[in-house]
């Protein structure tokens, strides 16, 4: 069953009077409930714009082409006003960003509680949920730390706790591992994958890292504001490929 369904999604940014960028030129996309998908593509391919529209941060353009459609959990999202979109973002979606984007003056716990608060769960209920969420990402001992006192990996785990604390159906992550080394990348991807499997939450990851794409169920590739069609599978070559020679063997040969 589709959790998120978009058709004719277009977005043109107007940078100046005569300078417009067609970031998204008509995209159809269906995301099934419980899927973990990656949106990949080079810079300027429209992958972030697509995520912003799917995450209700921007509305799709309604003029200059076929009428766009966007449904989330069976409800039409195109006609919603800013307040209603904000409410859905708060209660039914979670966001993870490349730069962690924690509020610098708040402690780890308060950052997570902020999301509870926005979702209408304040006070002790929010505190309990935030404490639990931090525990799940392995930061039980870091409650009172400010973002500046945490490593990049820890900050991103706080951000994930914040995205997951309201147990949303959909989590959108924009380059979640973009600022992390490979060790922390694996750790973060492991957490996301675990939630996807254990709780059936849907994840949309925007990335240009093929390692991230590799752990996902499906990869949507974008270029120039459009989704690239799946490549036709190339038939395997008839002749077996030549085994590459390991460098140490070359060294052995050279030295003999």
């Amino acid at each position: 069953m589709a959790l998120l369904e978009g058709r004719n999604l277009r977005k043109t940014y107007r940078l100046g009077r005569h300078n417009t960028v067609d970031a998204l030129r008509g995209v159809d996309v269906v995301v099934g409930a419980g899927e973990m998908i990656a949106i990949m593509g080079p810079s300027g391919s429209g992958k972030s714009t697509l995520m912003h529209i799917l995450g209700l941060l921007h509305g799709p353009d309604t003029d200059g082409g076929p009428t766009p459609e966007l449904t989330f959990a069976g409800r039409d999202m195109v006609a919603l006003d800013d307040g209603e979109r904000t409410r859905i973002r708060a209660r039914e979606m979670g966001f993870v960003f490349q730069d962690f984007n924690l509020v610098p003056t708040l402690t780890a716990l308060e950052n997570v509680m902020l999301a509870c608060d926005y979702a209408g769960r304040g006070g002790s209920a929010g505190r309990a949920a935030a404490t639990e969420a931090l525990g799940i990402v392995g930061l039980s001992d870091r409650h009172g730390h400010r973002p500046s006192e945490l490593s990049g990996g820890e900050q991103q785990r706080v951000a994930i706790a914040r995205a997951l604390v309201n147990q949303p159906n959909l989590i959108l992550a924009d380059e979640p591992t973009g600022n992390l080394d490979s060790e922390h990348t694996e750790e973060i991807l492991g957490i996301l994958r675990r939630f996807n499997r254990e709780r059936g939450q849907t994840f949309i990851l925007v990335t240009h890292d093929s390692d991230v794409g590799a752990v996902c169920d499906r990869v949507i590739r974008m270029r120039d504001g459009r989704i690239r069609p799946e490549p036709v599978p190339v038939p395997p070559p008839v002749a077996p490929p030549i085994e590459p020679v390991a460098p140490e063997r070359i060294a052995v040969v050279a030295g003999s």
Partner: protein
Amino acid sequence: MRYLRNLARRPVRTTLTIMGITIGIWALVVFGSMANKINALVSGGSTYYADKIEVTASSGSTGGFSSAPMSLSVADAVRAVDGVDVVSPAVMLLMDEQPTTVNMGVPPMITGSVAGSDEGRDDFVLRYAEGRALTPADEGSSVTVLGSDIARKYDKHVGDTIDLRGTRFEVVGVLEPTLTAPDQAASLPLEAAQLLYFQSLPAVVQTGLHPLELATTMTVYLDPGADPETVADRIETQVPDVATMTGKDFDQQIGSATSILNAILVGIALISLAVGGLSVVNTMAMSIAERTREIGIKRAIGGSRTRIVRELVLEAGLIGLIGGLIGLALGAVVVYLGDEAGRSSGTVLFELTLGTAVTAVAFSTILGAIAGFVPAVHAARLDPVTALRYE
């Protein structure tokens, strides 16, 4: 707590902004207290002159206080006017022969009248801190009741003696503060005041006058239901060479002058507050610009525009509140020190009321919140994605 932490991000800037508000509120508290004192004096006078008429000699009458002599026989002529019930003659003269200091409000005065000559009509309540009131039996003796400021200035108590215009008087009573004219007065029996007054007149004027036939002012109490303005007009037409002053005249003469002064004082304070308020606008605008990205985060994860505006307005209001409280505290110190210093010289300039204090702090808080509102609304309208990209 979170708001305090936000303010602590830029401690120097926050401090400077708070200082701007502090100075404004400080000025409002100090000038407001000065205006309070003036208002207390005026409303005291206004109450005093309500429903009675002051009669003075028409020559040299200024603002109801006249130094020109009248004959006591004028009292009989006034008493004969229709609508007049009781006439109480009195002698008033400045306490200092040559006033050396410029006084705010009322200068120190010597007043003399026969105790009880108002026949119980004067309802201005005087309370005695020490001693007793003057009685008709005091006529002919050198005794005085001192107003609170005079007693304090000269450090006099019941049983002490005080020199008034070169004559020694025994203090028999000291009044509680009234915040208006009686604080700055020494009350004498009529005869004693008449003698002092006679001595103060130039020799040319003294000729042909008898000291005990003199008065400078007469307080007229009216028949029930009589209109003060009508009776005052009648007195001026029927009694030669007198001028009258009613409560309405007092309000027009003194009241309008003081309300202009008050407007100037409060105006200065408000201008300094406006400057302080603008500095809050500036600080909030800068602080919000620095936090553009953070506002983007909050909007993205589901913070509504209303929430964003509320947080920022509360933060700006907190700047106003802190500035207001510090300003009030500093203002209160100035008022206290100023009054302590002034009391010894008999000039109490300030009166800080609870109303002024509450108004000043509430005003600065609201001012801060309003100053934060425009930048806050601007911030909340930002597109979250653009705000997130902001460096």
